[in-house]
Structure formats: C-alpha cells, structure tokens
C-alpha cells in the first residue's frame, strides 16, 4: 500500500504544484482600468538621470499583456487600457543593468494565464530622451517560443518563421533589431507578438512569453550586449560541450573495444547509448547558436525519439553488461515500453498536441507517459538488482554508475518536483545535474569496460594456451597414418571442434596375423581435461591390446580403470576384424556402426566409467566383399544448426543410402553446424579378397 501511495504522490505532485502556483499568481492580475501613463520611471521622469552615459535601458516594469492575436495591436494608437499588466522587472539582485544581463522572470503561465498557449501580445510605450542616435532593441535569449517585434506599428524583426497562423519556433537565440531611423527620439510604442507552442509547458512549469525584459538602447551598445548574451549562452553550454566531448571519446572507445572483441555485446549497446546522447547534445547545443533546426523538429528528435531510446538503450546495456540470462526476454519487454513512451510523448508534443490532440488530454497522457517511464525505470532496477546479485565484482562501481544514470535519465521529473538540477560554478559556469551524472557514470563505466576488456583478454590468452595444449595432445593421439590391413580399406575423417572435444580412435594390428583392432570413442567434457582423459584411455587401450584381442575384455579392463578415477566417463566402440572378415564388436554406449546403409542393432550399454561391473553389448557379423562399415562419433548426430535443430539420425540414414564417403558425411555435419569433434571411420572390405562362406551381414548377438 505504501508503495502505491508513493507512486500516486509522484504522479500528483507536479500538477498540485502548478495549481498552487497558478492560484498564487491570480492576485497579480492587476485591474486593467488604470489610465495610460508612462511606465518606465527611469525613462519617463527626469531626463537628466539617463543622460549621464545611459546608453541602454531595460524595459522592465509594467507591460500591457493580452492573449490572442490581432494585427491592429501593433499600432501605436491602439487603446490597450483594458489589457492586463505584466511586470517584467527581474527579481531583486538577479539583474546587472550595466551589462544588460537579467534574471529569470516566470512566464505568463505562472502569472495568471495557467493553461494558455498560442498567440499573445506585449505592449509598452516609452519616451526616449537623449542624443538623436540610432536605436536598437535587444530581445531576451530566453523566450517561449517565437515572436515578431513592432516599433510604432512597423515590423522591425522576428524570431521564428511566421507563415500566416503557422509558426515554426527555434531554440531561442539572442537577437537585436534596429528601430526605424525616424523613431530614435521621443515616444515609441513597442509591441511584441509572441507565440508559444502548446507543448512548451512540458519543459518547465512556468513557461510563457518573455523571461527577461527587452533592452532598448543605442544600436552600437545593443550590438555589444547581444554578443555578451551569446557569450553567456556559451558559458552555460560549456558543460554540455565538455559532456559531448567525453561522450564522443567514450563512443570511440566502445566502438574500438567492440571491434576488438565482438563477443562482448555490452560494448555495442554502450556505443549506441553514447550515440544517442551525442545526437541529443548536438541538436540542443547547436540550437543555442544557430537557427538551423526548427524547434518542433528538434523536440521530436530529442524528446520524442532520442530520450525514450536512451532510456531503453541504457537498460539493454546493463542487461548485457551483467550478462543476465534470457536477454531476449528483456528485449521483448523494453522495446514495447520504449515505443509506448515515444507514442505517449509524441501525443504531448507538436505537431500533434494542441492541433490533433486536445489540450485537455494532457491530464490523461502526462501521467501515462510518466507511468511508462517509471516502468522502464523499474525494469532497469530489476536488471541491475539481478545483475548485482549475480556479479559481485565491480558491484560498488556499477551501483554508483547506475544511480547516476537514473539521476540523468529522470532529471526532468526532478525539475517538475522543483529539485535543483543545475548548479552555478565559479566564473559564471553552470553545470546541469544530468551532465554531471552522465559524465561521471560514463567515466566509471569506461573504467569498468577497460577492466573487463583486459580481464577477457587475459582469459582468452589462457584459453588459447590451454586449447592449443589440448589440441596437441589430441593431435598426437589421433593417428595420421592408418596401418594397412590386407583386404580392408580403412578411411578416417577427423574434424576437431574449435574447443577441443574428446573424440579418439585407434587402429592397431592384432592377433591372429592380418587382423585389426579398431577402437573409437568419445569422453565426456571438453578442453584440456578431456584431452588428458583421452590420453589415459588411449594409453590403457594400447596396453590392454598388447595381450588381448577380445573387444569385450578390453572394454571391461578400461571400464574398471575409469571407475577407479571417478567422475570420468566415455562412450566407446571396439571392433576386431579377422582376415576372413569376421567382426566382433563391443560397445559401451557408443553410436552403433552402420553396415552399408543399415544401422546395426546393438543393444544399449552403459558408457565406460559408470559402474565397475557393467555389461557391454557384443555383436558379431561377417563382412562380405564390397561391404562397408561406417563408425561415427556423436559429434555428427548432435551437430546443431543455428535454430537449434539437431543433425539427427535421419540425415545420416539418408547420406548412407546415397553411399556417402566418410569425408562427405563429416562435411555435411560440419556445414550443418559443428558443435563437437566430428569423427567418421569407414572400413571397406575389398572385392579382390577371398569370399567367405558366411551369409551376407549376418549378425549374432552374443
């Protein structure tokens, strides 16, 4: 219950705050019946005061304000006495009149027009005294969102594109406009036609119109002040530029790491995160200096697309970083949430919001979007929680990085909760909380990435060494030159897996003279351990084969030896073939051999090393001239294609019906998808040898 209450509080808090602010602002709406009079005391009263080097003056004080739109409102003779007042005097202590830098003034939403978006007009009348020099008006660099400025009814300039009722807004730039040459002295009526997009209120709770007073002054001075405004913006953006540079370096590094180690998917996803942050920064920062990208498009790119994408990409990065199982499930959960959030935010942003989506719907969509974003946050926390549980190393660093990322991704929610998200540093530099969080978390993650990379490299070196050693052992044990046995053509096809499997085979001359012992098997396990076990088994087999030519007896002795070692098991098949073609076959769980295209019926038997008194199945048969026995390791039936399907017995049957050679079978399995060692051995009884009187392929179960 408590959790639910907390969530509700989170959802209601911003709107409750706004409502309070709106109520508090009501009394500011001054009665509009006051007669027209000069508003700016410094300009309108004693002329001496401004002749002492006063080259510019902030037009603070009471402007006339009216929502709506009418071209007649630009005219100096329009009677605006019925309009409301809008005080543009900056809060005490926040302005520097000398430099023309002003403090932030809450917009119209916080001052009596809580839900208003669209066109609105500001008007002021001034009486300029002083030398008759060309005047200019500097417009503030913080404005919602686009405007046209009129002096005595003449349009002197605009910011944003105005095409009839359609307005394209840009991220505001400091602008100044020359007043007409004939209005450099005496009374001047300045009218500002302001336009605010219906979605702007979502960026700050006190949006609306001018956030600083315009400054009127001599053109040369105003030009300098505008340049100063750009410098202030640059100072404000320095932290953003630093962030972008760090993100760019992180992007280069993650791409390099991914290029070096494709198996670590976390590098790839972090590169995508960096790319998304970088794109956002490029759009936001460049918008502060040039009007190259319309505000609507910038909002769609950064807030509708990139911001939800960033949230999703972060979750996936940590999913891959912690190697959580069922990453595909995470994809299936996170992408719909990201898409939902994109759709939700799109509803609340231009061009949909206000035009296709009624403004009242915001009350419905806003909490929904917040809810989706919180869901992504919950998935994020679940991933991190499970990850930290699995991976204790680097846990502290990861936890800190995660905390900072949550700060960075949920900074807008904090802003609506009036938690400070920017800090003033010395020298007038301003640092955003999100920037600090992004930079510090990226630094931590970079250290973690490098640690993992070097750790992985070290492991890989070890594996490589171990695999090489195991492979050498196996290479020694896999015979290259098979002994020639009169009347028999023996072929072997051995394709070792990348990771050393445990396949082995031996072909040894046996008694009576002209006979051959063929032993083939597979130990469980892989790598060095399997390689060593193969060495033990092959050594033991060769020793036993010195004094015995009975397959069952050889299996029995090796089984006892393996049982003594414990935790080792191997499947094995031993064939004894005498010069007449009589075959005695003993099996311990090995795949039965095929006689021509037919699988021999060999009763099942336990693998070696399971129990000491195991029985092994024994089968005898006689090879006729032209017969072929095919022996295989389980690496063939268990070859797997990318979808996980097994090569299986049916494919082997089909290949043998087509009289495939050992090499053809091995290649077919390898191309299907090799997982383990592949070993195929064929024993062909040649036509030229003496025929034996026994029936073709007769089998006698022993």
């Amino acid at each position, binding site marked *: 219950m408590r959790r639910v209450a907390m969530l509700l509080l989170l959802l209601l808090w911003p709107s409750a705050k706004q409502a309070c602010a709106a109520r508090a602002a009501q009394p500011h709406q001054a009665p509009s019946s006051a007669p027209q009079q000069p508003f700016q005391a410094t300009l309108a009263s004693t002329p001496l005061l401004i002749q002492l080097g006063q080259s510019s003056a902030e037009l603070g004080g009471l402007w006339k304000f009216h929502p709506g739109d009418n071209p007649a409102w630009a005219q100096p003779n329009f009677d605006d006495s019925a309009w409301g007042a809008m005080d543009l005097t900056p809060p005490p202590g926040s302005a520097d009149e000398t430099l023309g830098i002003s403090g932030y003034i809450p917009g119209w939403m916080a001052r009596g027009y809580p839900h208003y978006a669209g066109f609105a007009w500001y008007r002021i009348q001034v009486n300029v005294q002083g030398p008759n020099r060309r005047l200019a008006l500097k417009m503030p660099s913080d404005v919602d969102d686009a405007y046209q400025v009129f002096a005595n009814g003449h349009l002197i300039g605009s910011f944003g594109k105005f095409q009839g009722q359609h307005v394209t807004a840009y991220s505001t730039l400091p602008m100044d406009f020359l007043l007409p040459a004939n209005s450099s002295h005496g009374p001047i009526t300045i009218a500002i036609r302001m336009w605010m997009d219906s979605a702007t209120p979502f960026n700050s709770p006190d949006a609306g119109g001018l956030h600083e007073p315009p400054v009127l002054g001599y053109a040369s001075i105003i030009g300098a002040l505008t340049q100063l405004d750009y410098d202030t913006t640059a100072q404000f953006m320095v932290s953003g530029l630093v962030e972008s540079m760090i993100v760019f370096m992180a992007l280069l590094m993650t791409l390099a790491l991914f290029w070096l180690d494709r198996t670590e998917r976390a590098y790839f996803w972090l590169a995508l995160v960096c790319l998304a942050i970088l794109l956002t920064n490029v759009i936001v920062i460049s918008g502060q200096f040039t009007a190259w990208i319309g505000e609507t498009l910038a909002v769609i790119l950064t807030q509708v697309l990139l911001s939800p994408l960033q949230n999703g990409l972060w979750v996936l990065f940590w999913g891959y970083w912690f190697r959580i*199982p069922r990453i595909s499930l995470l994809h299936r959960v996170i992408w719909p949430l990201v898409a939902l959030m994109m759709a939700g935010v799109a509803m609340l942003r231009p061009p949909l919001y206000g035009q296709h989506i009624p403004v009242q719907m915001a009350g419905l969509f806003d909490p929904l979007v917040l809810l989706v974003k919180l869901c992504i946050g919950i998935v994020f926390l679940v991933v991190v929680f499970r990850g930290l549980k699995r991976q204790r190393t680097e846990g502290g660093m990861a936890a800190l990085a995660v905390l900072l990322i949550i700060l960075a991704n949920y900074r807008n929610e904090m802003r609506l909760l009036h938690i400070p998200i920017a800090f003033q540093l010395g020298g007038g530099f301003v640092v955003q909380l999100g920037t600090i969080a992004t930079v510090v978390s990226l630094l931590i993650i970079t250290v973690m990435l490098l640690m993992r990379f070097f750790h992985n490299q070290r492991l890989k070196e070890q594996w490589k060494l171990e695999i090489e050693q195991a492979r050498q052992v196996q290479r020694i044990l896999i015979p290259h030159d098979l002994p020639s046995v009169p009347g028999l053509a023996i072929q072997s096809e051995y394709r070792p897996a990348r990771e050393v499997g445990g396949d082995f085979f031996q072909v040894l001359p046996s008694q009576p003279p002209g006979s051959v012992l063929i032993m083939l098997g597979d130990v469980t396990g892989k790598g060095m351990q399997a390689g060593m076990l193969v060495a033990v088994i092959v050594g033991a087999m060769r020793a036993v084969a010195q004094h015995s030519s009975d397959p069952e007896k050889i299996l029995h002795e090796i089984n006892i030896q393996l049982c003594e070692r414990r935790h080792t098991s191997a499947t094995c098949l031993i064939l004894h073939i005498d010069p007449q073609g009589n075959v005695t076959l003993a099996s311990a769980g090995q795949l039965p051999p095929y006689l021509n295209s037919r699988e021999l019926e060999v*009763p*099942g*038997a336990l693998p070696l090393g399971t129990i000491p008194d195991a029985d092994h199945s024994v089968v005898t048969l006689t090879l006729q001239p032209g017969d072929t026995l095919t022996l295989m390791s*389980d690496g063939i039936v268990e070859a797997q294609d990318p979808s996980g399907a097994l090569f299986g017995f049916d494919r082997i049957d089909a290949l043998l019906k087509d009289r495939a050679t050992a090499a053809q079978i091995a290649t077919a399995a390898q191309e299907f998808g090799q997982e383990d060692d592949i070993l195929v051995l064929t024993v062909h009884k040649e036509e030229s040898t003496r025929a034996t009187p026994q029936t073709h392929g007769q089998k006698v179960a022993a």
Partner: protein
Amino acid sequence: MQEQVTQISIEELASPNGGDTITVLRFAGDITSASQPAILGAYEGLSETARRILLDFSKVEYLNSSGIALIIQMLIAANKQGRTIRSFGLSPHFQKVFTMVGITRYTSIHPDQAAACNSF
C-alpha cells in the same frame, strides 16, 4: 560464460492404480555438466519413502553427453535403493540416445505422463 540453469521441481502424484504415491521430478532448461549440484541435490533431497519416481524431460531444452552421464548416475543410485523409475517427455532422438547408452535398463521410457504413471 552464462550460468547453465537446470530447474527441477518436485511434485507428488497419487498413483492411478493405487499403491505408493509417485514422486515426479520435472526438469527444465539445460542438462549439462553444470547441472550436477542441481540434479544430485534434488535426488538426494527426496524422502526415503519415495519408492516410485517419475522423470519428466518434456521441458528440457538441451542435453549433452555429460548431462546423460549425470542422469545415469542418478538412475544407478535409485536402482541400488530399489526404487522404480519411469521417464517421459523425451524426443525420439533422445529416446534413441537413452537406449544406446543403456539407460533403458534402469528406466522405461513412455510417451506421456499418463502412460508413464499407468506403467508403475
């Protein structure tokens, strides 16, 4: 690199033909050498009185030779303790592999749970 997780759930079923209850071990996920603690742990945790054991492989995604060795080990232990074991849920491929390695000496293999239960 990822942990191989074998999930094993244990369930008690009434025997359709009367007699002892049937203890079902349902395996899910992969059965490989990494499954040793899970499988042997689950087996050793069974009550002494569990005489009839049913192995359900229908949710097993991957089974390799080390995994088969583990199953054999468990079956031999159960056999020594005089327990009766039945299995079901194996693909034709693995039915064949189980037969090949002699597992069928310790357990019969059935197409589904009902058939396996009826065979006790």
